[in-house]
């Protein structure tokens, strides 16, 4: 079952990603992007990362891509915005991309990840996902642990282990990202809004 689902999601994700590259119409690209990102969310669910999958759907697919499509609509000068690349470029990109894919995939897949994980586990202990008695993660119930980790407490890592210092918690990024988002929001709003006219009546 897992294999079958994986095959479906992986094929759709990769196929749609390829379609994004090959498509010339921006809105179609956005559509394929949605499909690709959505299937990736499916992969996340298969990997027992429910919360990440849901976030992917809500923020990425429902937010970011909608934003992109919105941008396409605002900048579409013709009825269907198509900016074509020449076939020569495409062939060139295809060859280079194929070689690049070969390089990355070869490098990544050549590594014996299972052996590495076993080796690391021997020295540094099991990850929280494999620990007996804490395997709710195995079923995708990571929300609470994620919440605790974002507040800095790593119950999943430290509980019942001997540690000098608490393990890495993510309180700082969780908080600092909010400032970043605020700054970025202001920046985007600044660029997007028209320059207000300097006139006595401010609310005009």
């Amino acid at each position: 079952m897992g294999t079958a689902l994986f095959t479906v999601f992986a094929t759709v994700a990769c196929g749609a990603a390829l379609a994004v590259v090959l498509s010339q119409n921006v809105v179609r690209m956005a559509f394929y992007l949605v499909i690709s990102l959505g299937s990736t969310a499916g992969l996340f669910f298969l990997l027992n990362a429910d919360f990440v999958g849901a976030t992917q759907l809500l923020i990425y697919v429902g937010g970011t891509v909608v934003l992109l499509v919105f941008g396409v609509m605002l900048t579409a000068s013709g009825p269907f915005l198509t900016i074509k690349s020449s076939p020569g470029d495409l062939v060139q990109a295809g060859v280079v991309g194929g070689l690049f894919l070969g390089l990355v995939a070869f490098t990544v897949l050549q590594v014996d990840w299972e052996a590495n994980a076993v080796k690391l586990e021997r020295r540094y202990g099991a990850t929280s996902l494999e620990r007996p008695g804490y395997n709710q993660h195995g079923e995708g119930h990571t929300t609470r642990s994620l919440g605790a980790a974002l507040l800095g407490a790593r119950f999943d890592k430290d509980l019942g282990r001997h540690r000098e210092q608490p393990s890495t918690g993510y309180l700082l990024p969780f908080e600092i990202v909010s400032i970043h988002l605020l700054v970025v929001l202001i920046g985007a709003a600044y660029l997007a809004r028209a320059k207000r006219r300097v006139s006595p009546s401010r609310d005009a």
Partner: protein
Amino acid sequence: MSASEILNGLIHGDLPRSAEVFGPEIVLCLTVVALLLLRLFSLDRSVPPYVVALFGSLVAFTGVLAQFVYFTTFGGEVGGTPLGMGETLFKLFLLTPEGAGTAGGIFTGLLMHDAFTLFFRLGLTFFLVLVVALTVLTGIPDNEDGPDFYTLLVGSTIGMLVATTANHLLMLFLGVEMMSVPSYVMVGFLKGRRSSSEAALKYVVYGAGTAGVMLYGISLLAGLMGTADFAELGPRLAYLVEGEGVGLSNPNIVASLLAVMMVLVGLAFKLSLVPFHFWCPDAFEGAPAEVGGYLSVASKAAAFALLVRFLLAVTGGQGESLASLNLYIGIALGAIAAVSMTFGNLAAYSQTNVKRLLAYSTIAHAGYMLMAVSAMMVIVNAPASSGWSPARIQVEAARCLEGLMYYLAVYLFMNLAAFAIVALIRNQTFSEEIKDYNGLAHHSGTMTLLCVCMGIALFSLIGLPPFGGFFAKMMIFASVLNAGSIHWTMWALLAIGGLNTIFSVFYYMRVLKAMFIAPRPEESRTLAVPGILGAYVLVITLPILLTGASPLQNNLSATAHYVASVLFP
């Protein structure tokens, strides 16, 4: 650990200490919020936004300064009695021996607090104060856009502070993103201008792309090592390849090399090193000169701090097993440095726009500074056959970084001075072309002052004695010379660096020639700048002299050496 131990450790141990060390950054965050609240309640009419920004950055700078003094004087040792002002300052910022006085990770090891990060934080916050002051004087954001501009400026600086202190791969990514994304907007800040929006578009496209590549590298690296903690990256890699071949036939080695390369792509973009430099001239030409000055110095400094820390993290703690491989990373960096400075200097030669010329010059300077990092990598990974003792390696490696930090400190002033003068002249002549600089020195007293200061900055950028740039360059060249005895390529690098220095004289001179020697156009009106601007330029030019032939030079280099040595315990 039990649950209560975990929570108690956080609430009573880690958090207070982290908040104490991170205080200046928190002040900057509050500044951002204050700026926005000010506008929300329409107070920006009565309290100009720059006042808030200036105040916030000054407080943050003072906070870091207090920490720096506290740390260097009483670092880790309880019982020292601070005197007078210092004591008040320490009390004001609630510094404690186990907080700011102790080196080590904060926020459960996400960030690092030690002399090295303190030095960079000090520089960055100081630079923020200078840039805010400059924008106040040149008036680049009007009162209307002030809150936006300062929000972006301060937000980007927070990102740089995070990046310089990062001790975790996730923080590396967050830091780089946090410093870049607001700066994309800052480059496009003059939104009605065609060139400005084009510059921003190029910057954001390249920036986002390289950030993505870097992230992929981070994911591979973290996956390989099973951790994202800097301190464990190197040892874990050594452990993984233990007993196997360490050549390129080992898949773990190849994968980690690819990952490190991808991360370096992201950092090279921030440093505008060839071949990731395309954005730099365009962005600087399109952006306001103030922003150009800010980006060229601050984001470079932050990226160098990050680069050094990252390289030491992935190559550290591996002993002999991977040293030869890491040596080649150092040599590869040297090659990039050589290409960058050569390209930067050659391309700068044909420029007609001063900002563009300075942009190419920053590419070249990034190359000079990368020489120091390259030499450091070579020295740290010296093979046993070279006959260097561990103690010597330690001292010489620290000397490389000392050169880098000295260079950055001088670069801060000389580059800011150059960009500030360009901005001030732009406000008078509405032009940034070299041909419009003709005879500027002959207009009025203040204009002459500006031109003289520009001369000092440019001479220092060339690396002529007795200015700071000379000593900085000497330090780096000396350490590269030292590294040459480990691998001959360093001598080649040194030769290229020397040639480049000579070559760079010509294009800097073109600007000065236009200013001083070329006749003043006859129909031009007499230009003058207000005295306060002249004073500002003087204030930032003076350190170029002070870091040159003056007693202060010893102090700075001693500090830099101490700071650098903490990375090589």
